[in-house]
């Protein structure tokens, strides 16, 4: 699977703007734990899901909006790529 810097950048930008106003962008990396560190709670995770569906035209199931599939930006990018058949 090839890395997708554009998807990654868009997800990062959305999370920073929506949930981490004022944060130093360098602190949010591909591997920063989002759900297990309390950065995304369940409501925030659903907002990310809506964003991904609207931006990338994919459909994400309720069972995928969890720590296993969405705990890091890398996880999220991989989830989107798998949806796009990447």
């Amino acid at each position, binding site marked *: 699977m090839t890395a997708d810097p554009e998807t990654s950048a868009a997800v990062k930008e959305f999370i920073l703007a929506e949930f981490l106003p*004022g*944060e130093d962008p360098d*602190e949010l990396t591909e591997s*920063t734990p989002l759900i297990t*560190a*309390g950065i995304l*709670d369940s*409501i925030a995770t659903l907002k990310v899901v809506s964003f991904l569906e609207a931006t990338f035209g994919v459909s994400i199931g309720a069972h995928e909006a969890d720590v296993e599939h969405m705990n890091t930006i890398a996880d999220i990018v991989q989830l989107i790529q798998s949806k796009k058949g990447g």
Partner: protein
Amino acid sequence: MAEIAVLHDYLDLPVAGRSAHTAVEEADGAKITYGELGRLSDALRDRLLSMGVRPGDRVGVWVRKSIDAVAAIYGILKAGAAYVPVDPTAPAGRNGYIFSNCSIRTAIVEDRYAAALRSELTAAGQDVPLIEIEGAGGGLGLRRRLDALQSESPAPHGTTIRPAADDLAYILYTSGSTGKPKGVMLSHGNAMSFIEWCSETFEPSGEERFSAHAPFHFDLSILDLFLPAKHGATLVVIGEELGKEPTQLAQFIAESRISSWYSAPSILSLLVERGKLREYDYGNLRRVLFAGEVFPIVRLNALRHLWPLPVYYNLYGPTETNVCTYFQVPADIEDSRTEPYPIGKICSHLSGVAIDASGNPVLDGSEGELCIAGPGVMLGYWGQPEQTENAYYVSEDEKRYYRTGDIVAREEGGSYRYLGRRDRMIKKRGYRVELDEIEACLYLHPEIDEAAVVAVPHDELGQMIRAHLSIRGAERMSIIKLKRFCSEHLPIYMIPDQFSFHPALPKTSTGKTNYQELKQYG
């Protein structure tokens, strides 16, 4: 030794036996001997009696911390009246409310505050005569005023009034949940039972020098005002300004050879952080007592490295009971310890029980609200019979216990662990969350200077947890770093939802974190 029947009897013994010994000293070096303190408070007693003050009357004290304030308190007690101290730095509206709420008969007031107070009292329909003194310091203002009054209209030499032990000795106003201060009524017996316990527990000597750091309207001051007197020791009064300034205070504690320190933990934290304690000699310090809020363990351990000599005691208790549990911090420091020390065992003059929400005593190890009975428990709230009634828990054997509102667990051996305020425990998504536990976690972070966690109503979450922080040497900190740090110590549902950064957290007049103000924060 003469029988101690009332609080002001503590002054009699040193006045008779150690009259030339220094009773009270101020930071600028002004001092008064026991003999002079006895005479000055007698003169105020005579003046008050000649003004018609009678046992049971309330007399206000609006004087900055000084020899004058100490003499005023003893003079009022000697007239058989109850003293009502107020925060000298508080607005006239608040202090006027307190004085009119308990219908003072008169007040000892520094002249700088007198005009504002007079208009507040007039507005409340209470035109009472005031004893205005020209500044506070060295006892000179009070002495001069009493001399002037004496030459205008001589007060006859009276005798000290000794009311019953159950009679009102002082009223301490604490911030009430309704927004108006609430007057906690305490008797001579309440304070004496505490002082006797202190005396047995700490065994101070007559050569000691006690700090008076807490304001006189704060219950910590009861120990300061009466324990040194009982032993004929010296009280070193620390004024409002010096008390808040860690660099000067650090030097002062060393140079004034304080042997017994007592304060809230917050100033001790400041001394650790900014006091440059390594630069001074604290060879006289043998005892450090702290009370009023939780001392973050990291700070306490840091202090013990800087001040290795003294014995440390964690004292716990609300104004309504004064100190009711105590814990002597063990001498061997475990720097790795992150769990706060317990609040300890119930003081020997009191008894305690922890009860569950339905009012049944809980088993050892289980959580419950701490309730306290015994001679230290207040008379009630001034003018609030209903609130007074609701403040107690009556056990099956009809014993009346004051409900502290604090949740504790009793450990093996009878020591209590403090878990949090009853009203600081919230439910979030069905989980019980203790806000104090989140605070304790934040204090483990080396960059966090101050932390206060509040719950605020939230549309989606029900309750949102917001942490207010001040960061050492920086305006803010990475939220990601903070949340990741919290996630190493707390379950996810306890990680704060929001963080707000402040240069310093707002404080109440007694130096505690002002949670009411933080809750209003947008």
